[in-house]
Structure formats: structure tokens, C-alpha cells
């Protein structure tokens, strides 16, 4: 064979791909031909270079990175798909049912709950109320926890934008529901931003008072600190909060951290037995013009107004029956027949997303929706007003007549009222209460 032919076979030769006769021919030729030997050496050099480089690259470990990314992205996609399905389902339901009213009712409860003045027994400087010339607008986050300690990472956060007598409120467990309170005219506008639906509610009475109260108290505190950084409170030192140097004061059950330079509060904590409230992330005096559109009581473009067909909202005086109905709805419609572990504002707020999902599915008419919404709201209001109360519903199922779920002492009464698992209510003397 000629050199040109041999050269064609050299790669196959060192790769071991030649047949016996060809293999032999190449070997014979190589013995006597230095040119082909040199050619073979050069090709082998290139092969070694390929092998070395191949090994170096094969050592890399993309496996974990790729698998982690695949799993992460897979989860994100699944969640997005679930969200989309859910949103679609909610939108379908919402068009047919008046569930936005339930949500509106639920949010009203929050309004009342955070309106309960946690400062009432301790604010002694409230008589120095100065006109609020500057603080016409205020943005803040509120975390209220009844019954246990606040967990700032997981507890529902109420985000408020306050402009004069109006409040725009969004609760972190349901960010697609926006509520705008007009405390002057006792109206509330609820917007469902995914369903583009709007509903008006009447908030006369307790809701209006509590909501106003909340704003007044907050603004009073702020004015007082601002005007007199050494108000009658004990200075407890300085610390940095979010990079701001702050001075701390304690007045009774209130702890206030105010900016060392401006005197504006940065964080307010109120601790009372069984109730903790934290007010933080304040933003003061953003020009009214910038916030006005956010607190408008007009229905935004593209939103459909849900008229008050069926029962009107009536958040009037709550009764024991409301609490019984509230417990029934909570257990039957939201918890598959089990009473909740605990009841209170925090639990209720955490339950809100289910109110929208599960409860909406079980409703057949506009009237029923409004009714259930009101019962939930008024039941919680009734519960809030009770002083001597005890909840024991954890682990109890609806229908268990021998198990007490809740008892309370009505004002001025001698005997307790006990609600049982079958939602019957009896008068029981103190000594006969369940342990």
C-alpha cells in the first residue's frame, strides 16, 4: 500500500477498528516508513490531547446543579399552574356567588379587631392632643395577635394607607382583596383585584367607631412623641432599627421606638395580657395627591359592581347566636367538621384564604353567602367583647354533644354559658365547668 492509503487508515489503526489483514498491512508499512511513523505520532498526540481534555471535562459535576434547578423550576411551575387554576376557579365562583361579601364581612372583623384600643388603659398623655397639621397621611403595617406571642414572620400583616378619614387596607393572607374605609360616611368599598369585582358595605356603628378610634389613637401617639420627645414616659435607651438610630420609651404597656432625630415613631409595641399589637414600617406625610387615588371610594375602571341582592349587610349588635353560627360555619365549612385548634383574630385571619375557597363552594345563593359572612363576622365580634371566656374546641368534632367547645360568663350573670360540640348551649354553674 502507498503512504497516502496508509495515512487514511492510521486513526482506525490506533482505535483498533481495522480488520486483521489491514492491521497487518499497516504494521508492515510502518516498520520501514519514517514519514508514516511521524504521521502516526502526530495523530496519537492529538488523540492524547483529546483524551486528556475529555477527562478534565468529564470530572465536572453539573449533576447536582442541574437537578436542583430542575426541581426548583418544576415546583415553581406547579405552583404557578395551581395558582392559575385556583384563580380561575375563584373567578368562576365569584361570578356566580356573592362570596365577595363574605370576604368583606371577614375584613370588617379585622377592622374592628384592630380598632380595639390596646392603649386605652395606659395612655396618660392623650389629653395633650394637638391638631394634626402635618400627619394627614400615614402608611404602616400592623400585626395583632390575640392570645399568644406575635410571630412577625408568619402572623398576618395588615397593611394600611391612611389618608385623612380614609383607609386602604390589605391583609397579607389575601393580597388580592383591597378594602377602602370611609370612616366619615361609614362606607366600605371592597375590591377583588383578580375577579375585578367591587362591593360596597355599610359600616355604621361599632365598625365605624373602632376604625376611627384606631386612627385617632395612632395619630395621637405620633403627635405626642413628635411634639415632645420627652413625654411622660421612661426612656429605655437607644437602638438601631433598620439602620435608623432610635430612642425607646416605655409608657405602661406601650413601647415606642422613635427616630432619634425626627422624633417620629419607627415601631410601636403594645402588650396587654392576651393581646399584642405591633405597628411598624411607618411612612409619614406622603403628599395627599400621591395617595388620593388609592383611597378613592369610586369603583375603578373595569370593575363590576355587585349589587346588594338578597340580604343587606347588618353588622349591628352581635349575639351569642352569631357566635354559635360562626363556630358552626368555621368547623363545618372550613375544617371538614373539626372545630379549630384555637379561635381568635390571628387564626381567623389565617383562615381567610379558605373562606374564599372552601366556603364559596358550599354556598348556593346570594342570601346564604351574605348570611354566612355576617355570622362569621358578628360571631367573632361577639367573641372579642367577652372578658371571661375559654375555648376548648381542639380535637372536638361537630356533633359531639358531650364535649364543651366554648364557655363564657355573660356580664352580670352568675352562671356560665357553655357551647357544646353539637352547638347546643346550656347554663352551667362555675363549679360544674369542664376542667
Amino acid at each position, binding site marked *: 500500500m502507498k503512504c497516502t492509503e496508509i495515512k487514511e487508515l492510521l486513526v482506525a489503526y490506533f482505535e483498533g477498528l481495522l480488520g486483521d489483514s489491514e492491521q497487518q498491512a499497516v504494521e508492515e508499512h510502518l516498520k520501514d516508513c519514517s514519514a508514516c511513523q511521524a504521521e502516526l505520532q502526530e495523530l496519537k498526540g492529538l488523540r492524547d490531547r*483529546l*483524551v*486528556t481534555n*475529555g477527562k478534565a471535562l468529564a470530572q*465536572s459535576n*453539573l449533576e447536582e446543579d442541574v437537578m436542583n434547578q430542575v426541581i426548583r423550576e418544576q415546583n415553581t411551575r406547579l405552583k404557578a399552574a395551581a395558582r392559575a387554576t385556583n384563580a380561575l376557579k375563584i373567578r368562576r365562583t365569584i361570578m356566580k356567588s356573592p362570596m365577595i361579601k363574605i370576604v368583606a364581612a371577614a375584613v370588617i372583623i379585622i377592622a374592628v379587631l384592630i380598632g380595639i384600643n390596646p392603649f386605652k388603659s395606659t395612655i396618660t398623655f392623650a389629653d395633650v392632643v394637638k391638631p394634626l397639621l402635618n400627619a394627614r397621611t400615614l402608611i404602616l403595617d400592623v400585626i395583632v395577635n390575640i392570645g399568644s406571642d406575635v410571630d412577625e414572620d408568619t402572623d398576618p400583616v395588615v397593611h394600611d394607607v391612611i389618608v385623612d378619614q380614609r383607609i386602604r387596607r390589605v391583609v397579607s393572607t389575601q393580597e388580592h382583596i383591597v378594602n377602602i374605609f370611609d370612616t366619615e360616611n361609614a362606607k366600605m368599598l371592597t375590591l377583588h383585584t383578580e375577579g375585578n369585582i367591587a362591593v360596597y358595605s355599610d359600616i355604621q356603628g361599632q365598625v365605624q367607631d373602632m376604625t376611627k378610634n384606631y386612627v385617632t389613637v395612632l395619630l395621637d401617639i405620633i403627635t405626642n412623641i413628635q411634639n415632645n420627645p420627652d413625654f411622660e414616659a421612661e426612656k429605655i435607651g437607644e437602638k438601631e432599627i433598620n439602620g435608623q438610630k432610635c430612642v425607646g420609651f416605655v409608657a405602661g404597656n406601650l413601647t415606642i421606638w422613635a427616630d432619634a432625630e425626627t422624633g417620629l415613631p419607627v415601631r410601636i409595641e403594645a402588650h396587654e395580657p392576651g393581646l399584642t399589637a405591633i405597628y411598624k414600617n411607618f411612612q409619614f406625610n406622603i403628599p395627599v395627591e400621591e395617595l388620593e387615588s388609592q383611597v378613592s371610594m369610586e369603583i375603578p375602571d373595569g370593575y363590576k359592581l355587585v349589587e346588594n341582592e338578597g340580604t343587606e349587610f347588618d353588622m349591628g349588635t352581635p349575639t351569642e347566636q352569631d357566635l354559635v353560627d360562626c363556630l358552626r360555619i368555621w368547623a363545618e365549612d372550613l375544617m371538614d367538621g373539626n372545630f379549630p385548634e384555637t379561635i381568635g383574630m390571628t387564626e381567623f385571619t389565617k383562615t381567610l384564604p379558605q373562606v374564599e375557597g372552601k366556603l364559596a363552594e358550599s354556598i348556593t345563593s346570594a342570601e346564604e353567602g351574605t348570611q354566612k359572612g355576617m355570622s362569621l363576622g358578628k360571631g367573632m365580634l361577639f367573641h372579642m367583647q367577652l372578658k371571661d371566656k375559654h375555648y376548648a374546641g381542639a380535637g372536638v368534632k361537630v356533633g359531639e354533644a358531650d364535649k364543651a367547645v366554648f364557655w363564657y360568663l355573660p356580664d352580670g350573670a352568675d352562671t356560665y354559658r357553655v357551647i357544646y360540640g353539637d352547638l347546643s348551649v346550656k347554663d352551667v354553674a362555675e363549679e360544674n365547668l369542664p376542667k
Partner: protein
Amino acid sequence: MSENDKFYVERCLDGHPDDYRYLVRRYQGVLLANLAGKLGSRDRAEEAAQEALVRAYFNIGKLKKPDSFFSWLLGIADNVAKEHQRKEQLQRQREIVRSFSEESSGTELSQDYALETAIAELPEVYRKIILLRYYGQHSCNQIAEQLDMPLGTVTKTLSRAYAMLRESLQQQTEVYEVSQ
């Protein structure tokens, strides 16, 4: 690890995403070699290889013939590379020049940019064979099966690929010498 590509592709489609790792393991070196030459650095190649592998996973339903996973993956990698390439072009030139100087200084190279660049410039069929043989550690028989061609064709193509690589490396050296 011994199963063929089709097996793992079907496992992924049947809802066992974790089995994708065997395909990643099998082709990571191949992809890196293919991409390093195009993108001019190990880091960028890794980034692009990862992107290509993840992209392939989420599009695996679109793969019509599960046994042609490799060719399909390489196509995805080439697309990713093209997307990355424009901005990388200048950087790549610099890396090549650097790799020559490293080579001439006798340093042991953990990565051979000149070689990778030469591979990147090979026409597809030649590139596939070189990649599978030396970066995917396939035997020539396996390559013949994988690419569905007779062994004789694989042998000839491999031989021709060597010739092309030599030529390309030679040209690079000349360019380098001229630029010195």
C-alpha cells in the same frame, strides 16, 4: 447508568424527574466540550451547559424520537451557545490567545481552549463523533448505534475529523504567530 437514552427519557416523561440525572451525568462532559470551544471559557460553558440541560428537561415532551436525545440535546446546546455567543465573542478571542501562550510555556492545561475551539468549528457530524468518542467515552461501536450509521462510516468520519482538527489547530497557530 447502563440503560440507553430512550429508557431515561421515557422515565422522565412518566413522571420520574430524578432519573434525568443519569442523562446529565452521561452528557455533561460532551456538552462542556462542545460549549467551551464556542464560548471560550469553562465557566461560561458550565453556565450554558446547565441552561441547555434544564431547557432540555422542560422540553423533553417535544422530543419526537427518544433515542435521538443526544442529537437533540446538542441542538439545544448550540442554540444556547448562539444566544450567549454574541457578547462572548471578544472575550473568546482573548482566551484563545491566552491558551496558546500557556501551552507554549509548557504549563499543563486543565483545559485546552485551542482544541475546543477547533472542535466547535467542525461540521456537525464530525463534531458529534469527536464529542461522543473522547468526551462521552463512547466506543466507536456505540457511536455507530447511537448515530445510526455503519461502523465503517464512523471510522472514516473519525479519520476525517482528525484531519480537520489538525488543520484547524495549525491555522490557529499561524494566526497566533502572526498576531505576535
